[in-house]
């Protein structure tokens, strides 16, 4: 049901029946390693290319989610996935493996929440009983496409972020098989915001206005106060983007507790890992939300959270042609039943 | 990771330095590191006058204050002058060479000079001078060696 300008309310409360998370070696050394279902100690993951390894990540995450929910893939009606690689091939090739009718979506790093919002919407209106949604990224594959070769010795500025090797997938279902499961209650779809920043090594700074815009729109549409949520978590703004977004939100008149405003990109790695400003990538918000945050919700740490995944919609071509970086953010609110 | 790099550098240094260990350390082995001040060498026509000539050349060259080490080798045809330039004067290498050639040619118009500031040439000159001490080392061999040095000097990159 549309509420306000750009928000959906899921009155039938679709359930996140199960989730699966996979990650690479760098994440295994990170802060949240115990929240991963599958961890690889090699970036190649036994494949002969990073792109294939990328696909394996997503397939494993999806399969883990299905296994945990005890649902056969034949019973899942739709599969919504996306990533950052050209023509989102890792997602599409994983759909070839899993053989579920498939929507490929692209929202850069906001793909995870774009997928979750769409899946919840479909399930809410009985368009499906089960929808599998996921997002993934692979450090080497993404850096290869957007930046320099992995082994190239260029110096990254402190504003740069580290692409997460990881995937998260969730099974959104109409009826809950068990109790104590999180449900999606509303979603706000963001519009593309461009504040004219052009530095591809400072994505956080470029994406912050999009996050602030979507969060502000969410509270306006839903007529809620920020204190409604135990946690507002952004996708991959990193250190700079998060500080900036917080100031923008305060300027917009939202009273958000600084302690309740976190960022997936800052949570996933330890402070001493050389990731400059934090993690990024489509897999970042997916892996942290579907792993760590859902586990925390089930343990009762949080009851209501708002996840805002942000994406920078640039390509190597556009920034070489001196286009500024357009950004987007999508928000989904998740509650415990 | 840094440890790996350090050990790599240490390893390459050992590799580089380990090859020279044949026991006897001669001046030519250390010619890069210290001032050797080799005596002037004369091949062929070992007359009093010629010896004076070579020594005079060496003295004249040594008078230039930009240099700190000079080796002179003279055969009947060519005179090789190898020298080391003081570190901060290395910016003016070309100028020094020009100046020296001019000075030498004006003073000794009869001689044919080959002037070089190259370390390699210097080392070879010192080595030649050392070998000359050996009575078995004939003048013919010495001349051949000098020709080889001159050929090396004229080799371009």
């Amino acid at each position, binding site marked *: 049901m549309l509420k306000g300008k750009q928000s959906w309310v899921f009155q039938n409360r679709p359930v996140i029946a199960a989730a699966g998370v996979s990650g690479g070696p760098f994440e295994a050394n990170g802060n949240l390693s115990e929240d991963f279902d599958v961890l690889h100690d090699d970036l190649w993951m036994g494949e002969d290319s990073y792109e294939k390894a990328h696909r394996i990540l997503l397939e494993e995450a999806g399969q883990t989610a299905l296994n945990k929910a005890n649902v056969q893939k034949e019973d899942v009606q739709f599969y919504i996935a996306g990533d950052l690689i050209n023509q989102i091939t890792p997602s599409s090739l994983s759909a070839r493996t899993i053989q579920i009718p498939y929507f490929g979506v692209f929202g850069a790093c906001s793909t995870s929440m774009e997928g979750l919002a769409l899946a919840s919407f479909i399930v809410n209106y009985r368009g499906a009983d089960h929808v599998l949604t996921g997002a993934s990224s692979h450090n080497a594959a993404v850096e290869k496409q957007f930046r320099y070769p992995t*082994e190239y010795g260029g110096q990254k500025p402190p504003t740069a972020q580290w692409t997460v090797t990881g995937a998260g997938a969730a099974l959104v279902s109409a009826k809950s098989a068990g109790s104590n499961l999180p449900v999606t209650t509303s979603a706000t779809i963001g519009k593309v915001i461009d504040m004219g920043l052009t530095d591809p090594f400072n994505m956080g700074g470029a994406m912050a206005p999009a996050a602030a815009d979507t969060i502000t729109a969410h509270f306006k549409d839903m007529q809620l106060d920020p204190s409604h949520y135990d946690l507002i978590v952004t996708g991959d703004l990193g250190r700079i983007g998060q500080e900036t977004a917080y100031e923008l939100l305060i300027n917009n008149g939202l009273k958000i507790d600084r302690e309740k405003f976190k960022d997936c990109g800052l949570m996933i790695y330890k402070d001493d890992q050389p990731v400059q400003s934090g993690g990024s990538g489509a897999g970042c918000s997916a892996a942290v939300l579907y792993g760590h945050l859902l586990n925390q919700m089930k343990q009762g740490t949080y009851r209501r959270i708002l996840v805002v995944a942000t994406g920078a919609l640039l390509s190597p071509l556009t920034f070489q042609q001196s286009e500024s970086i357009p950004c987007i953010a999508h928000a989904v609110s998740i509650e415990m039943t | 990771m840094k440890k790996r790099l350090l050990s790599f550098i240490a390893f390459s240094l050992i590799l580089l330095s380990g090859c020279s260990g044949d026991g006897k350390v001669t001046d030519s082995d250390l010619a890069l590191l210290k001032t050797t001040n080799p005596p002037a060498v004369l091949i062929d026509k070992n007359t009093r006058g010629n010896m004076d000539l070579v020594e005079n050349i060496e003295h004249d060259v040594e008078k230039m204050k930009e240099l700190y080490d000079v080796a002179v080798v003279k055969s009947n045809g060519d005179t090789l002058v190898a020298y080391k330039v003081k570190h901060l004067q290395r910016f003016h290498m070309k100028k020094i060479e020009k100046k020296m050639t001019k000075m030498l040619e004006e003073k000794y118009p009869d001689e044919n000079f080959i002037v070089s500031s190259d370390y390699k040439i210097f080392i070879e000159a010192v080595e030649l001078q050392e070998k000359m001490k050996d009575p078995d080392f004939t003048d013919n061999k010495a001349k051949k060696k000098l020709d080889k040095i001159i050929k090396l000097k004229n080799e371009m990159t």
Partner: protein
Amino acid sequence: MSKKTKTPEQQQYEKLEQKHELKRPVLKNCIRAFWVGGLICVVGQAITYFYIYFFNFTEQTAGNPTVATMIFISMLLTGFGVYDRLGQFGGAGSAVPVTGFGNAVISAAIEHRTEGFVLGVGGNMFKLAGSVILFGVFSAFVVALIKTLLIIWGVI
């Protein structure tokens, strides 16, 4: 670069964002670059002396084998995944010497190995270093042309 005029809103945001942006530690980077670059050059000098001592190379001719050796070492370091860490630490210090050029070539070759030898390695090997070669050759040509003209006109 086409400088598009920014809206007042964008300019205002830029100011706000600048406040939070982490600055590059320029002085620290310079010092590190000085040491790393210097260290690489010391190794290069050692190799030059090595060639002078043990082979028939003069100072003039030892340059070529030295460069080849340095590129070979940087190839090994790139392959073992050390050079990119060195690059992150040393910045320009490891990028400016010839080892940085080697690293740019080799890293691209490794990266595109999965796309095959001809179109992958062959086609992409010089995607970073290609412009260095192009502009290096071109500027050498221009300088040589100027020098030739000056000699013909008798200026030098």
